[in-house]
């Protein structure tokens, strides 16, 4: 029992340090690169390097420009950057019916589907300092493809109209301009950390999200 307690303490504290940076380019360590190269291909090295590089450039430009204008600019460049990753069906790309990839997995494998992109955009914007209460990963019904879909919604003000970051339409448009999308349910990890700092709460009921968080924690330890 003592042993388990000590383990949990050591583990927990390590977790806390990394938790704030989960899914960020800062977690791209030589260990992570080696792991990704092993899982996918030698190209993963360049792809991850490029991703890190993109994040550095974005940080730099953010430092130069004033806040409100730059946040919109960041939305567009992040949307564009992630949308360069080619779309693959989960079954083809991951060999599973529904697989939610971490940003690093998406970048390194150079492929993904709607939720992978939404997740990657969410973590990228979070890393660039966008307050997470403005970001919501949203389940939507997409009229165009007529299938369940996922996008990232950006609320400049809580009661206002969001901007939609989508891979079906590469432009960043207000929700009213996207009549093809019907929102169903949204979440962010503000909900997740809401209660006592534990992963209890609404997002914890989304099994796939929990799996992503679990893999992010493993990646952070690599």
């Amino acid at each position, binding site marked *: 029992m003592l042993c388990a307690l000590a383990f949990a303490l050591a583990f927990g504290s390590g977790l806390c340090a990394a938790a704030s940076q989960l899914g960020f380019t800062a977690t791209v360590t030589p260990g992570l690169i080696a792991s990704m190269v092993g899982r996918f291909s030698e190209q993963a090295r360049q792809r991850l390097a490029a991703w890190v590089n993109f994040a550095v450039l974005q940080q730099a430009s953010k430092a130069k420009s004033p806040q409100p204008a730059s946040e919109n600019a960041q939305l567009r460049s992040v949307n564009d950057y992630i949308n360069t990753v080619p779309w693959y069906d989960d079954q083809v790309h991951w060999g599973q019916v529904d697989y939610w990839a971490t940003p690093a997995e998406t970048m390194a494998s150079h492929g993904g589907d709607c939720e992978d992109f939404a997740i990657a955009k969410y973590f990228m914007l979070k890393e660039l300092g966008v307050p997470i209460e403005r970001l919501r990963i949203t389940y939507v019904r997409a009229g165009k493809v007529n299938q369940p879909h996922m996008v990232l919604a950006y609320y400049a003000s809580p*009661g206002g*109209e*969001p901007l939609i970051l989508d891979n079906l339409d590469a432009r960043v448009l207000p929700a009213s301009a996207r009549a093809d999308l019907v*929102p169903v349910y*949204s979440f962010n990890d503000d909900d997740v950390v809401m*209660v*006592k700092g534990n992963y209890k*709460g*609404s997002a914890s*009921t989304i099994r796939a999200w929990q799996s992503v968080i679990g893999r992010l924690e493993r990646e952070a330890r690599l």
Partner: protein
Amino acid sequence: MKLGYYLLLAVSGLFAVLLAGVGYMSVSGTRDYLEHQLGAHAEETATSLALAIGSAANPDDTVLLATIVNPVFDRGQYERIQIIGISGAVLVNRKLQPADPDVPEWFQRVFPIESPGGEALISAGWRQIGRVTVLSRPALAYAHLWQSGIETLAWLFALYLVALVALRAMLVLLLRTLTAIESAAHDIGERKFRTITIKPWAREFKSVVAAFNQLSRKIRLVIDEEMARAEQFRREAFTDALTGVPNRRGLDLQIQRILEPGTIEKFGVFAMIEIHGLADFNKKSGFQKTDEFLRHFSAVLSAAGEPPDFVCGRLNGATFAALLTSTDAAWAAATLSGVFHQLQAALEQAGAGGSAMVQVGAVQFDDLDQSLHGLLAAADLALARAGRDGRSALEIVPLTETGADSSARGSGEWRRLIEQALEARQLTLFAQTVVSLPAKRMLHTEVNVRLQESAGQTVPARLFVPMALRHKLGPRLDAVVLDLALEHLTREQWPANAPKQGGAGAAGVIALNLCGASLSDTAFLAHLAARLSAAPALAKRLVFETSEAAFLENLEAVPVFAARVRALGAQFALDNFMVSGESLKRLESLLPHYLKLSASLTADLFTSAEARFLVSSLVRIAQSLEIAVIAQGIEEEQSIDVLTRLGVSGVQGYAVGRPEPW
């Protein structure tokens, strides 16, 4: 405290701590589960409320919001349901007073249930409207936790009790061996060398028991060997080597036992048988023929009867003796006459009819309270009469006619005299010192009693005590002697008034003789117990002696008496020890403080190698049982050297100190 209790305490304590831990963890685990369930429940309620409100026609209508919330809230499972608008304004707020759960305060403190809230975002289309927060009521969870806690505790307690009982049973079974070893060790401490019969499971115990038993068996073996040797020496010491019949010492022993006071009154004939002219026969026929004849003669004599009705022995070269006792006066005389004719025939058969003859002198008596000494003297007289004519003859003379009757007084006269003396306490105590060998330091003082006659003379114990016993006055006599001795000791305040005797504990020890009848006499025993417990300091200085003969007659009562006396603080010892086989074997269980050897054993130490062997063997046995051996009736200084060499540890007699008025 016993080892078993330590183990039981330690293991049960450990087990209690363990079970308490298990109980705590079980309740704590249930608590965590309930907390999680409460949280999940709140979360689900919040989500479903958010979805219901989001899909309503006009989600901004607060009346509508309250209408949606109320049915859910009124189920009573929530402490609070709030709807907060996106601007932060509280739109709906339903609250219950926090219910006081029906469980003890301390329980809530030890196992707090923090009701986690559930929260969900309300959105209508892309528009975010606000948040629903739901807080569950922990009261129900507390009740459940309390109930399950009680059940867990009850189960664990039952388990604990079962484990405790099982543990106790196992320990008892396991430690049975240790108890057996302890009791055997205790017995060995008391010089009872026995083995442990229990077969333990544990290897260590097995080894200990095996080693213990081996050691005990070895010591036993040594003692048994000593006993066997003593038995051998005893046979040799009491048996005539040539003929196999008892020798003088052996006959003495047997006759003394038959003549012991208190036996049922019988008629008796004591005969001395002498073969006249045996020396001539020896000269004529050679010693081999003579030996053969003597053997045959002894066989014929001893074939005449069985002890205790008939005992015979060879006193010396050509003199034999026989004692016949019976309830029938005519039988003894007739038997003796038959034996006489058989002996004559044996003489004829050996071809010694001409030169040798058998002469028998016998005394007839109708009262067994006789001393062997008196009988020998009287029979000698009768033998002289038988030899008058110088041929084979049988002469039977009534004891009264020989003039050697020791009981000059009539039996009734003795009784009156003794009763009178007991009444008036006309008894004088005499003390005789017993000293140690070789240091000759005082061991103890033996106190004897003499009867004061009206004429101012005293009658020694050996004369009046048998008469007292015969009239069953023994216990009364012993009681009076005990009283007199205790009074004397109290008066004298020994050893304060006798600094010369060193004042050491042993110097003040007093030995008192008790008769066999006293040992099981209830009145005497009660008297003894009362006296000794009233004066525990004096009791420590007393040793009660009883004769070996009395021991053999009261085999059951004597060990009980010895234990009783020891419990009162005094000691128990055997007097007049003559090494009868039975008493030697029982020495081990009786464990007297010391043995006083019969004077007949030590009388001929100079002349008889057998007697020396017997005494030294006896000393070895006694030493292995840590019993002191004391020789008594020692009159010559030279005997003391022999006794010292034989290992005797104490001596009493004229050589070291006469009886003095005490």
